[in-house]
């Protein structure tokens, strides 16, 4: 199902041509309208005319999250506030929020890519779209909302929180598409089970559009099974536009980056060098059509692999293979690089453990110790301590086989780890806090 078949299935050669044209335009636009980029160009001895096509992308300077923060709030805007119709801000897990602004055209382009994204999951105007992303400064809620309305879905702007009411609404209004973070989807499923709501009988969900945090394949299978739907990954970040930068299609083989608007590349995060197809590195995005706050070569911090071969769905836009985690989420445990999502991948394949876990990193003497705290399920309980110790052992050895790092495992009671209603917090790094034990 396409929203904009022409744009979504553009022949690769034409796509590159279009990207080149738009890259030239945006380069000139930021040079003319942004003191920040003008200065950067001068420092590099770069002229807008040096950029002739996508092959020159690597000549452009990077933009980092810190640039947005240093120029807080409006410093990177390329147009006056009289042309800005909306502002969003990302919470910023560290420090000040990042503020982004949209012109009317930006809202239009965002709505366009969201409409493409929603239809890529096989959802249409006949669907009832339940948006449980937060509405407000966070881009999740309004992004899905505008896209859903454009497609013609019946949009339920449920926003976050009040799970009892969310469940009631989904039952009574017959929601068929659920949009939220994957961790909230897991929470909803657990909540439904406790309230004796059977998704197979009482809910009509068939599609889940889940994003705003990395999630693994085993997590996908669990959510699909628990809510009886097909789960699709949506990718985005407010600096670029919000959700709808990339979206998985019905083939479920990586999210198509809408590259006529957002030009992707993968780089080595250490050296900044561009990497080839199939190589894993940091995703870097250039907005080709934005007016409010266009960004050149924005370092997303997300690690991925890009694949350019044609997808069975017919779309020609490159696919990003599931985000493995953020470069700044990477833990180094006794010299081994560990991504929390890799641990999730191993953990959730073990049926006796619940879907909630927290990773705690502590310093014990000179050593970093990684503890995986995971909830037991009703089915994993036995009257014998031995059985549970065996389960702990199994988790430990599965992780150590897959990741090459030893971890400790602590089983905890069901529903005792904190549930997130928005983005999940799965990591407690206590290495700089004197190693005190934290729940």
């Amino acid at each position, binding site marked *: 199902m396409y929203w904009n078949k022409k744009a979504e299935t553009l022949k690769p050669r034409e796509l590159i041509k279009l990207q080149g044209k738009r890259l030239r335009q945006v380069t000139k636009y930021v040079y003319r309208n942004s003191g920040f980029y003008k200065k950067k160009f001068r420092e590099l001895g770069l002229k807008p005319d040096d950029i002739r096509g996508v092959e020159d992308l690597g000549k452009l300077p990077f933009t980092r999250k810190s640039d947005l923060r240093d120029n807080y709030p409006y410093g990177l805007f390329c147009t006056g506030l009289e042309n800005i119709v909306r502002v969003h801000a990302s919470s910023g897990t560290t420090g000040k929020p990042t503020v982004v602004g949209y012109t009317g055209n930006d809202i239009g382009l965002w709505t366009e890519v969201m409409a493409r994204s929603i239809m890529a999951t096989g959802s249409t105007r006949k669907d009832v779209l339940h948006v449980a992303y937060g509405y407000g400064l966070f881009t999740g809620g309004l992004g899905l909302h505008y896209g859903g309305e454009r497609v013609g879905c019946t949009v339920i702007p449920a926003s976050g929180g009040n799970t009892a009411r969310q469940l009631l609404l989904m039952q009574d209004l017959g929601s068929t598409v659920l949009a939220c973070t994957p961790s909230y989807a897991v929470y909803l499923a657990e909540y439904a089970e406790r309230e004796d709501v059977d998704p197979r009988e009482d809910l009509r969900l068939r599609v889940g559009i889940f994003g705003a945090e990395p999630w693994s394949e085993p997590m996908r299978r669990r959510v699909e099974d628990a809510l009886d739907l097909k789960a699709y990954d949506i990718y985005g970040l407010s600096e670029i536009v919000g959700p709808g930068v990339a979206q998985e299609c019905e083939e479920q083989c990586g999210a198509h980056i809408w590259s006529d608007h957002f030009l992707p590349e993968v780089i080595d995060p250490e050296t900044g060098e561009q990497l080839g197809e199939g190589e894993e590195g940091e995703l870097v995005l250039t907005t080709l059509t934005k007016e409010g706050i266009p960004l050149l070569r924005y370092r997303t911090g997300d690690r991925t692999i890009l694949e350019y071969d044609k997808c069975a769905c017919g779309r020609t836009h490159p696919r990003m293979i599931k985000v493995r985690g953020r470069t700044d989420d990477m833990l180094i445990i006794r010299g081994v690089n560990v991504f929390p999502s890799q641990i999730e991948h191993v953990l959730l394949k073990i049926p006796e453990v619940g879907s909630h876990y927290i990773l705690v990193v502590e310093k014990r003497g000179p050593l970093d110790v990684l503890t995986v705290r995971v909830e037991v399920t*009703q089915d994993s*309980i*036995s*009257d014998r*301590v031995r059985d549970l110790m065996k389960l702990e052992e199994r988790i430990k050895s599965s992780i150590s086989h897959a990741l090459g790092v030893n971890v400790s495992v602590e089983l905890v*009671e069901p529903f005792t780890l904190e549930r997130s209603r928005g983005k999940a917090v799965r990591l407690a790094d206590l290495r700089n806090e004197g190693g005190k034990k934290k729940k």
Partner: protein
Amino acid sequence: MIKQLSVFLENEPGRLVKVTRILEDAGIDIRALTVAETADFGILRLIVNDPGKAHRILKENSVAVALDSVLGVEVEDKPGGLRAIAEILAEGEVNIEYVYAFVTRSHEKAFVVLRVDDRERAVKVLGSSSIRLVGQDEVSNI
């Protein structure tokens, strides 16, 4: 055969309070209990008057709990009572994994709860002795 609840408890203050309060509020009477613990967690094993109800209530309150059957036998509440059972099982080559016991108010007897590696065999060897097996009804009606 008597019913035993096994409850997963983290090794933290307040965990036992939570579980016992749920049972108290549901009017469940605890007949016997024992805790097996490791560094991080414990298994609380409970014999109660109404195991079905207790199991349901605990589950509804999101407590991780399992309901199993264990052997219950009656012994004389006097020195050597437990030894007699242990001896019969040992002779029958049945291994005891854990055992606990409780005395009752109205009885001259004590009840012993046994988890063994081979329950069928245990029932057989105890059955052919003078030891009397106890059912859940008797425990419920103490």
